[in-house]
């Protein structure tokens, strides 16, 4: 069951690499939130009841409902329905994302050979998701896509924290939550300002400051 959920989580990134519809990115964020909730629930026996309840609440309410809702609002308010065409086509994006996944799993296999306390599949998928999210930030042009990729990066980091043997303190999880929520809120405000100033939310509009 765990294996299936991790594979679904990985496939969401591969799908994001192919599609240009921004609403689909938000749907994938929703799917990632549900996957993370299931993964936390499956770890009920190994974590304290308080930690599990908090993490479940965090993943279900914030990552599954609140974050995709805020993102969808951002997409509709700014009429950002499709990613702008970039120099890298969907095919090459998919190829590079696949290479990233191969590298991620290779690193996980190597690391688990040295340290047998990590969960190799969790580690491989989380590393691949983090690197893929960074790849999307670098190659995509729409600012809303950058924000969606940033949230995917945070999801990958959350998965990484589940892959290590040491439980992350509650305080840190609270801090991460604050980070995601407030950052998303502020990103949303600024995207609206940028849209009203430039009529587009294309990163190419933000290139006047040079030197």
């Amino acid at each position, binding site marked *: 069951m765990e294996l299936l959920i991790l594979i679904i989580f990985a496939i969401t990134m591969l799908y994001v690499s192919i599609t240009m519809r921004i609403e689909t990115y938000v749907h994938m964020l929703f799917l990632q939130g549900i996957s993370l909730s299931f993964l936390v629930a499956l770890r009920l026996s190994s974590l304290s009841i308080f930690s599990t309840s908090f993490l479940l609440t965090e993943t279900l309410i914030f990552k599954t409902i609140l974050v995709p809702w805020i993102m969808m609002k951002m997409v509709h308010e700014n009429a950002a329905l499709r990613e702008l065409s970039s120099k890298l086509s969907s095919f090459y994006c998919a190829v590079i994302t696949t290479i990233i996944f191969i590298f991620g799993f290779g690193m996980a296999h190597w690391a688990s050979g040295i340290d047998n306390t990590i969960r190799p599949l969790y580690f491989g998928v989380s590393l691949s998701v983090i690197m893929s999210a960074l790849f999307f930030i670098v190659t995509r042009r729409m600012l809303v896509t*950058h924000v969606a990729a940033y949230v995917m*990066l945070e999801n990958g980091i959350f998965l990484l924290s589940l892959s290590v043997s040491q439980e992350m303190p509650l305080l840190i999880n609270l801090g991460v939550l604050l980070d995601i929520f407030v950052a998303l809120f502020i990103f949303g405000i600024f995207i609206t*300002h940028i849209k009203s100033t430039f009529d587009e939310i294309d990163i190419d509009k933000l290139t006047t400051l040079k030197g």
Partner: protein
Amino acid sequence: MLAILFFIPVTAVTLIMIVKSVHIRRIIFCVAAFLFSVLALMLCAVAPISATKYFILDKTGSLFLALLAIVWSAVVVYSKGFLASEILSVRKEQLYCSLLLLFPVAMTGVITSAHLGLFWVFVQITTLLSVPFIYMDKKISALEATWKYLFICSVGIALAFVGVVLLSQAIGVNGSLFFADMGSNAKLFSPMWIGFSFVFLMVGFGTKSGLAPMHAWLPDAHSEAPAPASAMLSGMMLNTALLGIVRLVIMMNNADAGKISSALLTVSGMLSVIIGALFMLKNTNYKRMLAYSSIENMGIIAICLGTGGAAYYAAFLHIAGHAVIKAAFFLTSGILYQQFHSKQIDDTRGLISRFPGAGWLWISCFIMLSGLPPSPLFFSKLILIKTLFGQGHYMLASALLCIILLVIYGMGKTVLNMICGEAETVLSNIPQHTRFFWYTPPAALLTFAVLCWCYPSITGFIRGVAERMAQ
């Protein structure tokens, strides 16, 4: 006692938001600012102090807290003149004063955090709190600068969290992320994970402190923010992120992995110095020139931390000197902008003849920042070069010397062009009744900078911090 440092500004902000009278709000702001600065300096004198196991003010932190109190006090006094010149609505003034009070709270949280995860949280809070400052002018360029700052720093901090997670793996199930525990138990950590975690933590905190190649946000953000905000960002926020790197270097040294941290810091530092120097040479905007100078100086501090030994004293002396001198320089740039209404170097000419006070302040800032005596940066750079030669790094030391000379040439040429010549743009002078608030803070900061190396108590304090690190 430590809790009062958080309590005073938060209470003041709450009162500022509730009270309707502008006059009473200003009194609350001044009283809170005075109490915070005095209390912070008093606590630095009696450090170490702790408030719960999550907040400790140790000797290293007390240096940074003292610098925060001094720079922030200067910015608060300067703000009196700044606000008098800006036509801000009542609401905007309320927001400005509230943010100016909350910002040091977040930085105090960074400085006093005893837990790496909590440190990370407060670093992100400083990012989010400084965003409205950068976007104060609401211009298109400010919008671009704010977005770049917010996004690049958020991604950097997210990668730092990857480092925190990997470090927790290195520590194992019986360890903790408290700095004291990490420092004393470092030898037991897994060498593989500690190296990986340091890379991510260095990328994350290096982004916030403006080290290359993660520096892209710094020139835009520091040049577009108003002068008081630029002073705070360059003078203190960069240092607070650097404190994280300092604490991690202690851990890496104790874990016998000092070579990894040393190599990374030296490479990143050298890259920062080169990029800062090159972009300073051809810049047409004096605020961007100062921002690139911040990158260059952060690079020098990173090289000091990477070199180790006697260079640790150079690092802390450079941190202290750069914080106050750069803050003074940015505050003086605010005076220039007020008079010339332009950030372009070509529009800012004839400083000495038209505005002698500003002109002499500008020259003094240049002398201090470029590391000419009696600047503390002269001594820090001297100790660094001497240590590099002593350790046999002749190429690195020679390259650094050449770049420092290039920086002095580039900045000197710009400063001389600005103070000489005839002003061609429309000028306006600062009103007589506010001149004290504009000119006194940068002058006081420069005076304190001189005391950094010649006043025995201060030099002894900095030396004590460095010796603790070397142990």
